[in-house]
């Protein structure tokens, strides 16, 4: 469909094999360090946060009408919403929801996309042509729109949202993997493996896939942020995660009409989401810089 961007030459082969080198390079890019710190913090919040929030019951349907629309204070750090639920507790618990959705989406997308891309690049010919046209079709429609259509068709809810997003996410990985494999296929060590009699599965699993891993992980890092955004977008529209389970998009949507009276309902979950996505983006951008041989000096 679009012009095939030439696979980065010898993309993976010259990668660093030494963790120390990666750390050294990483340390030279302060922004990615910041990103890493943010990601670590967010992940910790996602895992352990729910155990320490002041009002865990507010995330499972409890309401507290007497405290509705409280301004941020010592009890309700980030205020309460229309039905008196603690925005802080809900935002923290929503972190876990978003991370979970994004991780599962990416795992599914990688599980579908990477093998398909590898097959496509390795086999070439009609198989390649067919797989690439299918990815073209999925890439034609923006993820959110297609996910919206699918979520609508499948019915709203967290699981369906995840399935919907995964189904539109794999083509990116298929494309990436295919490009990498095409570049790898030109490498002599693949030829060498064939010369000593290695079978195709052996070549794919022992020689090709391990060398494709790093670019896939880098993409996954950046995509974490985008997947979170899309999931929240679905929630915001109302076809994603359903209340009362706290989710950033849903929370922003709920606070939207109260903006003038109670700005905190929308602002804090949005800010939390912003920090999370930014963290993953900074990290991914830094990793890309380290690993992308195009950018080497």
């Amino acid at each position, binding site marked *: 469909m679009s012009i095939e961007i030439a696979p980065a030459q010898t993309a993976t082969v010259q990668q660093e094999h030494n963790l*120390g*080198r990666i750390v*050294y*390079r990483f340390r030279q890019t302060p922004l990615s360090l910041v990103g890493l710190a943010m990601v670590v913090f967010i992940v910790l919040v996602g895992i352990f946060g729910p155990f320490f929030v002041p009002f865990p019951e507010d995330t499972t349907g409890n309401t507290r009408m007497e405290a509705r629309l409280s301004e941020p204070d010592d009890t309700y750090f980030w205020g309460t919403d229309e039905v008196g639920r603690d925005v802080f507790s809900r935002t923290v618990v929503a972190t876990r929801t978003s991370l979970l959705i994004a991780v599962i989406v990416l795992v599914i997308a990688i599980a579908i996309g990477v093998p398909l891309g590898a097959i496509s690049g390795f086999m070439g010919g009609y198989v390649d042509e067919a797989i690439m046209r299918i990815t073209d079709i999925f890439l034609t429609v923006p993820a959110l729109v297609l996910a919206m259509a699918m979520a609508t068709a499948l019915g709203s809810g967290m699981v369906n949202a995840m399935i919907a997003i995964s189904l539109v996410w794999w083509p990116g990985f298929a494309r990436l993997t295919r490009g990498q494999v095409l570049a790898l296929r030109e490498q002599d060590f693949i030829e060498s493996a064939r010369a000593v009699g290695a079978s195709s599965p052996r070549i794919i699993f022992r020689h090709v896939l391990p060398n494709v891993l790093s670019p896939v992980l880098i993409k996954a890092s950046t995509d974490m942020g985008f997947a979170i955004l899309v999931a929240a977008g679905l929630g915001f529209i109302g076809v994603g995660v359903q209340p009362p389970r706290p989710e950033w998009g849903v929370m922003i949507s709920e606070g939207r009409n109260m903006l003038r009276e109670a700005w905190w309902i929308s602002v804090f979950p949005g800010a939390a989401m912003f920090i999370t996505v930014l963290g993953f983006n900074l990290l991914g951008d830094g990793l890309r810089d380290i690993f992308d041989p195009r950018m080497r*000096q």
Partner: protein
Amino acid sequence: MTTQKPLVQINDLHLYFDSFDGQSHVLDGVNLTVNRGDILGIVGETGSGKTMTALSIANLMPGGKLTGEVWFDGENVLQKRGADLRRFRASRLGMIFQNPTTNLNPVFTIGELLIDAILTQQYDVAGWQLMSVGKWLNRGLRKQAREKAIELLNLVGIPDPAQRLSQYPHEFSGGQKQRVLIAMALAGDPDLLIADEPTTALDVAIQAQILRLIQRIVEEREMSALLITHDMGVVAKICTRVAVMYGGVVVEDAPIEAIFSNPQHPYTRGLLRAIPSDEMQHGDLQGIPGSPPSFLSPPSGCRFHPRCPERLEHCHIAPPAVVHINDESHSVACYLHTDEKRKSFARD
């Protein structure tokens, strides 16, 4: 000739790079002279520092810390900055590099590239005049430059130059691209042509064409040239002098005849013995055992001593001084030739 001041004089050049593994000491006190009219070959293996030495003459280092002096016709190049440096590069130096395909910008026509080269080098125009807007404002200047471009393409042996100006680099063959690059390098009537492995990417027949072209041009235009190569055969073909580099140091520097007939440094000798020549039988060829030195932890003393077949006991202690043998024109950095020291150690 001898009374004239040299065109380029490099004094005690050191170059350091910082990396994860620590600091690498890539040039370790390079001293080198290019006399007027010379075609000086710098020979050495991968990582001997020959390219870095050449780039330092243009002050075109890709980063790193550089100390020392590079005198070009009485000016210290390493102290030049900004417009001054640019003007120097434009008017005094021409450079060509190894791979002609990657050295031509693929999205501009040969004409555009050449005209820009001529304009910067000959008229020293302001930046905006080279930009697309400038095209419409400098028609006269550009027309002149175009004439000159055709002249240059003729000079480097490209047929139909006027037509070919409007073609893109990919429409030229490898040898032709290298010719175009030579034309660009000549645009400013430079005094020194630096050619960094100009024929390594080319086939034998094309290589011969290009070498002959360089030789002819240097002679006709009374220039000097610096030819960087790893190939002693290329050196033998057109150079008048040779500097042999090893591990970031010039180990031997001599006229072409002396290098082949009377090589003095064990490394030079090893290099010559490692090249298959006509009369060799199986077993005659001798490699130099071991690997090139690491710049992170270079060998102490003479950097060649771990691989040297004629190593003396004290070679690892301190780097040898440069001594002249026979006459001033042949110098070598090796303890085999520092007589006093040899005697004193022999007594111990």
